[in-house]
């Protein structure tokens, strides 16, 4: 018999391999992508071909007549099983299939069901949809003043109390506006030594998880089971139960490992459609998207950010105005939270007495935008750290010294009024500076190849308040099973949470088995998003383990073990039950304190349970003849608190930086008249191994989040923050031109070089 040994300490800070490592290298790790159920039908979607229009007629006859087709389903059919089929985490604005109107080119309008997915796919192309086209609004700045409205009225979901005031608002494309007012910006601008104003833009981009979204629903009279590639099983359960009018316990949502998520798989995506189809067909139904279809499902907001700063002649920033407009696409998804939560920190990691922020989430006739590895932060840091560099250069100050002079430090209030605590901004910037060799001489290149360096640093508030619950069962041999709904999408949560549980129980992490999310057995968790799991679920797991440990101590006392005897756990069970029998269960939950922002000023003394800070340094080589940029060195530094598993944290940081490298240099969803032109890897270029800088690092500084579980905090997003502006700043350093829009393609650099030389390309003259 194998018995679990008690160990004293040491599970935190262990770089053990992922617990599922063997399953992943042998191809046997479970993904819903691989799951098929007996009798299952495949669903293939017919999508809107216009960005905005009223549906006049849907002709499904040819599809219906296709040999092998089980049925064809439209939005009207969905009403038979779900009378109010609108869903969404922030707003109930998205129909399961289009009803009456389409709001973006690519919106699901009808579905073909068949046992053979190829037949369903071919038949879906036979569906003919007639539209009365409407004017479309595509640009986020235009959306603020347009007279075309994507939705007739706003429909906040009620899940978030701070959105309730938006209910029923008409004739607007603004889904949410957040305003922060601190000090007197106008007065400070009026008396400023220097004023600087710039506008920065980012394009719509896509997560492209390699496991495309998929969901299988199996509706039976007893209830509904959904297997989904979701990051938020509990929240999906709540939403499906609401749509069906069922109690939560009749809806079971299972997730396996995810082939990447990055925010693409939060809240209901394909699940509601799969459930509706299974209810109609009375058979299990799988909705599995192609890579192309993912681009029409969720994306990262394009944005326009106007930033203006007042700076003294000594280089102190005295006031800053930020106007951030996010392009949210046709449905709100989690966009309103992106606009609000990122609004907290739009002014950057700087100590500024007077701050004014206006942050807008807009509806447009584009594919929906949601959260992508930072809830808006990469868009914001791109703008404010590019701006910071420009200000320093225009004042003739060293960009690093200018940052140091203004950097927000522990103990000082951030723009919201929330005081920075356990936030290693200074250490992160220092380490970036050291790693990139700032201030030291380096080869600046020659001829048409010019080199330069740049740095950038960002600061993010966690998404708050959110709840996590965990349960731990200790078996009679001393092994432990952890039940929690945190989803492992590659970030290593299964391993880190096993380490936390083991540390609290005093056993080895290898003796903890983590059950993959299944809402029938794993308790509620708000979602695996926003770098929240290590902190929130980490606390819940720690508390559950501590409760189990206390029960084990009580068992020891009850069975007459002398105090401090440290008997093996298995021996305690044997003493109590006379054999290997019994279970001890501990549970724990966690929800951090939070004070919602004042509606008028946006201020709050407690915006977040912890701050995340990360910075990057880049060295680039620009070919002035072609505009091509090579990133030679990219160093990334984060405050991760005390890393639970340092190796996995490091991989998270370099991985996030690689992803952001794509968003910086190549990735852009390109539209013509509202039609997406490049929804595939052939035309939408994500980083490959040849795009890696020769020198790439990811590291965390020595830090401790006192309020975190064993000193830890979240880190999944932190590695993205500084990459884009560090590269733009390095390009400026190399060749003296400033790029204000992502992505920084060779074409964009070349055009900028020609403009700077007073010789713009003919079409720009």
């Amino acid at each position: 018999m194998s018995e679990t040994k008690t160990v004293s300490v040491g599970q935190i800070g262990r770089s053990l391999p992922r617990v599922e490592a063997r399953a992943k290298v042998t191809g046997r790790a479970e993904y819903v992508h691989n799951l098929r159920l007996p009798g299952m039908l495949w669903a293939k979607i017919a999508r809107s071909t216009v960005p905005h229009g009223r549906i006049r007629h849907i002709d499904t006859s040819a599809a219906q007549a296709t040999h092998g087709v089980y049925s064809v389903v439209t939005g009207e059919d969905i009403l038979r099983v779900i009378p109010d089929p609108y869903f969404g985490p922030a707003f109930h604005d998205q129909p399961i299939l289009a009803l009456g109107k389409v709001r973006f080119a690519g919106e699901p309008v009808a579905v073909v069901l068949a046992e053979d997915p190829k037949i369903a796919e071919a038949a879906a192309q036979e569906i003919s949809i007639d539209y009365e086209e409407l004017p479309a609004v595509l640009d986020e700045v235009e959306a603020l003043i347009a007279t075309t409205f994507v939705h007739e009225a706003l429909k906040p979901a009620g899940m978030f109390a701070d959105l309730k005031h938006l209910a029923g608002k008409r004739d607007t494309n603004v889904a949410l506006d957040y305003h922060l007012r601190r000090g007197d910006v106008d007065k400070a601008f009026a008396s400023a030594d220097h004023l600087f104003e710039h506008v920065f833009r980012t394009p719509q981009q896509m997560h492209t998880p390699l496991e495309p979204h998929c969901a299988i629903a199996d509706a039976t009279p007893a209830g509904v089971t959904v297997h989904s590639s979701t990051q938020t099983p509990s929240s999906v359960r709540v939403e499906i139960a609401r749509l069906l009018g069922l109690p939560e316990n009749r809806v079971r949502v299972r997730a396996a490992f995810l082939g990447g998520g990055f925010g693409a798989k939060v809240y209901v995506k394909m699940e509601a459609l799969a459930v509706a189809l299974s209810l109609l067909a009375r058979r299990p139904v799988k909705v599995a998207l192609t890579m192309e279809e993912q681009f029409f499902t969720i994306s990262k907001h394009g944005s326009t950010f106007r930033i203006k700063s007042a700076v003294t002649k000594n280089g102190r920033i005295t006031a800053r105005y930020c106007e951030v407009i996010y392009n949210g696409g046709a449905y709100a998804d989690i966009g309103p939270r992106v606009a609000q939560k990122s609004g907290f920190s739009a002014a950057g990691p700087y100590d500024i007495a007077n701050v004014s922020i206006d942050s807008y989430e807009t509806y447009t006739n584009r594919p929906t935008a949601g959260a992508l590895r930072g809830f808006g932060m990469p868009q914001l840091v791109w703008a404010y750290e590019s701006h910071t560099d420009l200000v320093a250069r225009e004042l003739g100050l060293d960009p690093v010294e200018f940052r140091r002079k203004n950097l927000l430090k522990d103990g000082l209030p951030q723009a919201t009024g929330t005081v920075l605590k356990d936030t290693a901004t200074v250490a992160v910037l220092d380490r970036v500076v050291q790693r990139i060799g700032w201030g030291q001489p380096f080869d600046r290149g020659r001829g048409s190849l010019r080199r330069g360096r740049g740095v950038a640093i960002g600061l993010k508030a966690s998404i708050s308040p959110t709840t996590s619950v965990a349960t731990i069962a200790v078996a009679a041999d001393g092994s432990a099973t952890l039940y929690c709904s945190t989803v492992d999408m590659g970030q290593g949560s299964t391993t880190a949470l096993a380490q936390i549980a083991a540390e609290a129980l005093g056993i080895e992490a290898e003796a903890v088995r983590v059950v993959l999310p299944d809402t029938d057995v794993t308790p509620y968790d708000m979602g695996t998003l926003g770098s929240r799991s290590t902190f929130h679920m980490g606390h819940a797991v720690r508390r559950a383990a501590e409760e189990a440990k206390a029960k084990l101590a009580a068992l020891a006392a009850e069975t007459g073990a002398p105090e401090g005897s440290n008997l093996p756990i298995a021996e305690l069970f044997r003493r109590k039950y006379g054999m290997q029998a019994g279970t001890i269960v501990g549970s724990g939950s966690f929800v951090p304190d939070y004070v919602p922002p004042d509606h008028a000023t946006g201020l709050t003394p407690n915006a977040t349970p912890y701050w995340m800070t990360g910075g990057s340094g880049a060295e680039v080589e620009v070919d002035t003849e072609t505009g091509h940029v090579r990133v030679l060195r990219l160093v990334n530094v984060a405050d991760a608190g005390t890393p639970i598993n340092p190796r996995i944290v490091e991989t998270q940081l370099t991985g996030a930086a690689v992803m952001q490298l794509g968003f910086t240099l190549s990735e852009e969803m390109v539209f013509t008249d509202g039609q997406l032109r490049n929804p595939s890897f052939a035309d939408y270029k994500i980083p490959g191994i040849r795009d890696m800088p020769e020198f790439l690092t990811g590291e965390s500084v020595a830090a401790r989040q006192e309020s975190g579980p064993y000193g830890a905090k979240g880190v999944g997003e932190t590695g993205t923050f500084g990459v884009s502006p560090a590269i733009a700043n390095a390009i400026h350093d190399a060749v003296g031109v400033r790029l204000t829009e992502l992505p920084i393609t060779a074409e964009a650099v070349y055009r900028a070089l020609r403009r700077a030389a007073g010789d713009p390309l003919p079409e720009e003259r």
Partner: protein
Amino acid sequence: MSAAPRTIRFTLNGAAAECVVAPHETLVDVLRDRFALGGPRESCGQGLCGCCTVLVDSAAVSGCLYLAVFADGAELVTVEGLADGDTLHPVQEAFIEAGAFQCGFCTPGFVLMTTQLLAAHPDPSDDQIRHYLSGNLCRCGAYPQIVEAVNLAARKLRIG
């Protein structure tokens, strides 16, 4: 989808196999549908990401573009066929030791392509590594760790 189905015979992970396939069916679909293999996975569907990699007569192909009928008479290896019972292939061991993946969805493709790389270049240069693995995409961005794993695997295989 009207052309006549054909019976194809091949070796799959060391065992004789046969099945009836339609001319339009891809290798990745056939391996997943008929042989319940989950290692090869269709992601981009255009032969650009490498998630569907299968070794056909020791050469890595994109299973999403490779018609199953072409596999007639071939020796096929998927990631499921690399380990010897409970003993992992040195490349698999190296990927674990170097922590060369996050979500793991692309990992079978990288592992298979690495075996092909190391068969051709037992002591690969950095450029050879990048050349061979340029057709595999990892959205989690574990490339630095993958390079480390390849070098580690090369050492393991050279030592034997």
